[in-house]
Each structure stands twice: as structure tokens, then as C-alpha cells.
């Protein structure tokens, strides 16, 4: 009887089961690390985008303020005095009214009395 032959038989089935299990656990680990990295990369990207949006918002605000400043009354007046812009008064004779009476301020308002009741 050849006992040595029997002793050297590889238990392929169990070995494969273990190998698959170890590979699966290893893969899970790698996935976990990949996910963590992805989370970090996406977080960094998210932060960069937030910063970019904030910067864009600030640039928009700065530009808006600049427009407000350049079109403000004191600035227009300064430019008028420097001769960069000119104002031409509209003559009364050039006015052509399309309405008999206008209220340029607002529509007729709701007026309330001291107790909150609508008067007109």
C-alpha cells in the first residue's frame, strides 16, 4: 500500500472554499478602501465646488456693487460735470400725454382705520 500517495493528496475543495472566502474578504476590504477614497475625493471636489460657487457669488456681488456704484447718482453727476455724459432736458412742448390724469406713485391704496377696517 502506498501511504505516501494518500498523504500528499491536496484537499482542493476546502482550499478553494478558503481561497474564495479570503478573496471575497480581500475584495470587500479593497471596495471599502476604494469607497473611503471616493468619499474623500468627492468631498474634496464638493468643497472645491462650494468654494468656486462662493467665489462666483462674491464676484457677482462685487460686479453688482460696481454697477450700482457706477450708475449711482453721485457718480453720474461727476461724469456729467466731467463732460463724459450730457443731459438734454425734454421740452414741455415735446410732451404728448396719453392720459388725462395719472397717479405716477401707485395704484389707489387700501386705507385702513385705527381698528384695521378698510376705509376705501
Amino acid at each position, binding site marked *: 500500500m502506498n501511504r505516501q500517495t494518500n498523504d500528499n493528496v491536496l484537499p482542493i475543495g476546502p482550499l478553494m472554499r478558503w481561497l474564495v472566502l479570503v478573496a471575497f474578504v480581500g475584495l470587500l476590504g479593497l471596495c471599502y478602501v476604494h469607497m473611503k477614497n471616493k468619499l*474623500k475625493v468627492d468631498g474634496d471636489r464638493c468643497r472645491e465646488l462650494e468654494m468656486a460657487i462662493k467665489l462666483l457669488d462674491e464676484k457677482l456681488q462685487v460686479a453688482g456693487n460696481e454697477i450700482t456704484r457706477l450708475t449711482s*447718482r453721485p457718480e453720474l453727476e461727476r461724469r456729467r460735470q466731467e463732460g463724459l455724459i450730457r443731459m438734454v432736458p425734454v421740452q414741455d412742448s415735446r410732451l404728448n*400725454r396719453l392720459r388725462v*390724469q395719472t397717479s405716477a406713485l*401707485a395704484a389707489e391704496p387700501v*386705507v385702513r382705520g385705527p381698528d384695521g377696517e378698510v376705509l376705501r
Partner: protein
Amino acid sequence: MSAAAHKRAGLVCILLAVVFSIYSARLVHLQVAKHKEYRSLAGATTAKTVDERAERGIITDRNGEALAVNVPIYAVAVDGKLVTETKADRAKLAGIISRHLELPLDKVAERIATERPYVVVQRGVDAIRVAGLKEELSAERIRGVMYESEPRRFYPNEERLSHVLGFLNHDGDGVQGVEMMMQPYLRGEDGFVTTERDRTGREIVAYRGTERPAKDGMTVELTIDMELQEIVEKELDEAYKRLNPNMLTAVYVRPRTGEVLAMATRPAFNPNHPGEAKVETTKNRAIIEMFEPGSTFKIVVIAAALEQKTVTPQSIYHCENGSFAYGGKILRDVHGYGSLSVHDIMVKSSNIGCAKIAMHLGADTFHEYIRRFGFGERTGLGLPGEISGMVRPRHSWTPLSITRVPMGHEIAVTPLQIVMSMSAIANGGNMMLPQIVRAVRDQDGREVVSFSPQVVRRVVSEQTAAHVAASLADVVGEKGTAPQAAILGYPVAGKTGTAQRVDPKGGYTPGKYVVSFAGYFPANDPEVAGIVLVDDARTPGTRNYGGLVAAPIFAAIGRGMARQLDLVPAATKSDGTTIALVPFGSGAN
């Protein structure tokens, strides 16, 4: 294996078991017993709560024109401990900062050569510069530079409307005007986010915890119309240069609603630099200064007497030819008159006539009407600092008071109070609550709060108001005291006022006058009521009257406003009624 070998192996096993048991015990001690302590220690190092600053709401006029906005500004600071240690890196950092902030290199180098944890390099750096600086420092991997947001308020119209808008203190809170009045709406609500940082100080976004976003402040829309405000400011500027008075103020409201359309005072200040302004220039004189109103106050006594039916517009009083002895004192008129009707007493502004009407009316009733017209109490505009004026209690009136109060002496009022009483006459006897804020809107433009016009009380009947209005219209006629208040094409009604300036030490300051004109137009359908008040104009005493100093300013402002509001010119017919003048071919029938 021999017995000795077995023994040795057993000893090694026991030794290993003991060592690992000690390690295990320590591990359990650290992980379980000391869990809380070390967790908080780690948290303190990596976890951080970042504040998110809410942006202050903006202020606009009724047409949406921006009056107060925010500028994103930063303070750039350096943490001396974090800045890389070597001299070469410090020099590099100084170079980058100097280039981006346009500062001298040696000065930057000097400032950052420190071990202190917080050294400000420059304040007031705009957001775009800061972004460039951040980008370059990040690329160069240089740490230790901090950027602290400190937004600045910007008022694009500079001095214009400065007294109404107010300004902010160093903490960003309103200290005057609408900025203070609407602070709860404008301020917004700061937010925060808890997060963790890695060892380089960079945020680990995945570990963000509790988050409460900042709620920006709301937009406050004023009733002010900047087009009308500009007209007022321009005319006041011109008058301030020409007359060089101590103070000049003007307020315009819409009588039907009580909305304040324009409010200006000279001298003014620039709210962008409140620290540079003198305290005196920052006061909104339209609401915090009280004056003896002079003859503009005569509308109260005449309206009261007409309402009580003590007199009719045709009742005749003898005006003593300009000199009336009463209570041991002489009361004088500027020009002597004989008999005048109540209507003409107003038109000619007779002090003696008004005194006699008041005596006829009775002091108690007169006092009651003074209060009914809103004198002696705040108008309710809401702007901080508004005063109530001064109306002495009836029991402390002297026997002379009944002759002096009707002509606007022995009483102190604010310009706004006079405008509101004039508006009550223009509005058929209904006194409106003055309003400076029209609406409050959220970030999406939705109206959160709106302020609708509100009647405070009916002061006099419609008929009485019409009688007074008819007299006021004639004040601006050729026979009145203020023909210079007339606006071509638009009937104007109003009243002049001239009073000696009260000396704070007591009595009056000789040769100094507070003159005013309060009125409204078009008289047939009032759209705008206002007052122009000039304190101590540098003009000869013989010309220092409301009708000569304030009325022309009122007219100049009125001309601009009528044009801006596109009011249709009207003409007065021989029977006193007015008709609208519509150009031929206008399409109106």
C-alpha cells in the same frame, strides 16, 4: 521532546500570555474606561464648528433702486506658528501677499515675522484679491494664512438720503435711521456647520455633522422715491450754498397714504464714512429737532374754530391796524390791517386776527385741537430718535398764551408734525400715519410684511378741511404771503412760517429766524405735501421770511416733482375751479 524542553516551552507560553494580557488590559482601559476622555480630546483637535455669517438685507427705494448693499470684504491675517519655519518660505509668503494685496514687500515681511497666532496683515481686502491669494498659496502649499470675512455696508448714493438710511457700527448693527429701525429684518440669522479637519487643516467633507444654513437678511423697500429725493436734495444743495443757513430740511409725503416720498437735511454726511462725520451733521432734523413753527401753525386755530362753528370763513375780525394790546403786552402784525374775514386772516397771516379767533374759541378747545392735530406726540413714523415736540399742558398756559400759541409761539414742533397736519387738511381732514417702509421681502422677492396706509384719526370734517384748503390756496395767490411758492400750471396751497430762533439759554436769539413753507399740490387733487424749513438763513433781516426764503425752494422742488410725477397741468377758472390742461392731440378726451 524532553521534559526540560516542555517546561521551557510552558514558561515562554505563560510569559507571552502575561504580556498579551497586560496589553489587552491596557487596550480595554484606553478603549472603554477612557473612551469619553480620548474621544473629546481627539474631537477638540479635529472637529470644528464653522460659523456661517448671514448677509445683511439690502435697502431699496419704492422703485427697487439699491440704497444700501453689502461688499464682501476680508481681513487677511497670519498665524505665525503655522507659517513654515524657514526664512526662505517666509520670504516667499511675504512676496505672494505683497503682490496680491499690493503692499510694500518689506512691510509685509516685517508683519509676518512673528510667532504670534493671529497677526492682521491687511483689512478691507476685496473678495477677488483674496481668491487669487488663496489659489496661489494653495498651489505653493503654504499654510498659516487666514481670511476673516468682515462685510462692509456700501451706500451708493453717498450723502443722499443719509439721515433716513443711517449707518452701521463696527459690529454690523444699525445705529441710526432705517438701518436701526429695521434691524430685526435686515440682520438675518447666522448659521453654523460642525465638521472635521485633517492634520493639514483641510476640511474632511465626509465627516460633516450638524448643519444650520445661514438665513440672509430681508430686503427692506422704502416708500422713498429716489427720483423725487434727488430733486429735493439738488434744490437743498443749491439753497444751502446760496443761503448758508445753520440747517435746512425738507420732507415730502403723499397726503392720501402718509407715505414719505422724500426727506433730506443739510448739512448731510456720507454714511460710507460715518466716523469722519461731525455728530451734528448726522442728525435727521426733520424728526429730532423742534422749532417754534410760526404762522404755519395758524391752520390749527382756524381749522378748530371752523370745525367748532365758532366762526365761518366769512366772519369778520378787526385786526387793530397791526397793534393789539393784550395782557400788558403788544401783539403786532407785520402789516397793519383793519377788518379781515377769517379767510383773509389766513391769507394775510394776521397774528392779531388768529389771536382773536383763539380767544373766541377758548383755550381749552384750542388745546384739544392742538393735540388732535398730533402736536406733542410722536407721529409714529418709526425712525429712531423721533421726538414729540413740546406742547405745554393747558394748566401751565399763561394769560398771554392764548394770543401767542395760535401764531406758533410757546410751542415746539418737528417739521414732520407740520407736514402731517398739512396733509390732514389736504386729505379732507383724515390724518394718516406717516410711513417710511413700504414692504419687507425675503430672498426670493416674496412680500413678507407690507405696510398699508392707516388713518390715525379724523382731525376735522371734510367741509372744514375744504374751507381751510381754500384759504391756503389763496396764500399762494397774489394777495397772499407766498406768491413765490406758486408753480406754473399747478395750483399750490400752503402757509408760510417765520419765527425767531429760540436761544437754548432762554428767550430768542436776536436777528436769527427759522422760516418755513408748508404746503401741497396740486391743490385741487393733492398728490404731494411737504415742508421746507430754513434755520438762520444768511439773508438780510428784511428778507428773512418764509414767503421769501422757503417758498421759492418749495416751488423749485414742486416744479421738478410735478414733472417727474407727470402731473397734468391745470388752470384756474374765474369761478375758482380748476381744469386740467391737456395738450391738443394727446389722445385724451
